């Protein structure tokens, strides 16, 4: 008897609390709001972390001077690549007299790599001082070099 009374009391309390909650709810509120709530409750972190930040969604506008600079840079890069390729090909196939390497003498009878002339670059260490990589190391120490030049000139004329 006591158990059933307790269950009944709990049931009444639960119903009362539900009705209070229903009363506090806005009557104009969409009854399906829970669907949207459930959807966004799982995504809050994703959006809130971007708060106070700037999303960069930029586009590239045409600028005559920038375009000119880009074309110039492309040309420099292309020349550099071509020069580099030329040096690299020279390293293995360079011959001091290109005439002899035009197929006339090099007629396929090239026994053991000998074609009548010494191949200077068969040994890649023969000309080890080529600078294949960079183009801006012609004068790495302008101040030092100028000092040396100045000192040399000074000492010559003294």
């Amino acid at each position, binding site marked *: 008897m006591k158990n059933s009374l307790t269950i009944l009391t709990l049931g009444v309390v639960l119903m009362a609390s539900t009705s209070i909650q229903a009363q506090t709810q806005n009557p104009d509120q969409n009854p399906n709001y829970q669907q949207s709530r459930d959807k966004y409750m799982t995504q809050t972190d994703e959006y809130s972390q971007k708060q*106070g930040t*700037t999303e960069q969604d*930029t586009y590239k506008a045409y600028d*005559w001077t920038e375009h000119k600079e880009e074309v110039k840079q492309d040309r420099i890069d292309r020349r550099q690549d071509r020069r580099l390729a030329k040096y690299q090909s020279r390293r293995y196939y360079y011959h001091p007299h290109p005439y002899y390497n035009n197929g006339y003498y090099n007629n396929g009878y090239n026994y053991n790599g000998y074609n009548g002339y010494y191949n200077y670059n068969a040994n890649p260490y023969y000309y080890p001082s080529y600078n294949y990589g960079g183009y801006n190391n012609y004068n790495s120490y302008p101040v030092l070099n*100028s000092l040396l030049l100045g000192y040399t000139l000074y000492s010559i004329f003294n």
Partner: protein
Amino acid sequence: MKKIILPLAMAFFAMAILPACHTVSRVDSDSEIDISGKWNDVDSKLVAEELTKQALEEQWLYQFKRANERPPVVIVGMVTNKSHEHIEAETFIKNMEREFINSQKVKLVQGGDKREQIRAERADQQTNASVSTMKQWGLEIGADFMMQGDINSIVDAYKRKKVVYYQVNLELTNIQTNEIVWIGEKKIKKYVKN
């Protein structure tokens, strides 16, 4: 002959050293210096001044205060830069936030990563701080409005001449009702000749 050599050597030395030299001088942060014609601190400052003025003087603020008898609480959302340049909106947004707080007309709440740090600290206090100083959960102020924005630009260029137009818009949206209550706007037009 000897007399010539020494100055010549000095000249060589000077010529070698000159390109390496550069000067740096401090200037007033309010001074207007335009170099390339791109977006710079002057534009940011103009935007901040104009939008702060608009936000604090327009009707939405008075209407909210009349209805609620308290200043509105704003959280800063995301600003989307859709222009042709890299623009960081934080430079003018921070100026605006500062003006909001100093004027005491608008309250601000923290959002984004900084809010996460605050919550992490609060969580840490639950196990490390004394009971009397430990901060409680669930007592943050809920924002009434979210401030979001866009930066747009139009570029008209021909050879060395260029006209750049920037339009910065900020808007406040009521978080409860989704109603936009304020749109601020600042337009900047520049004529650049290279």
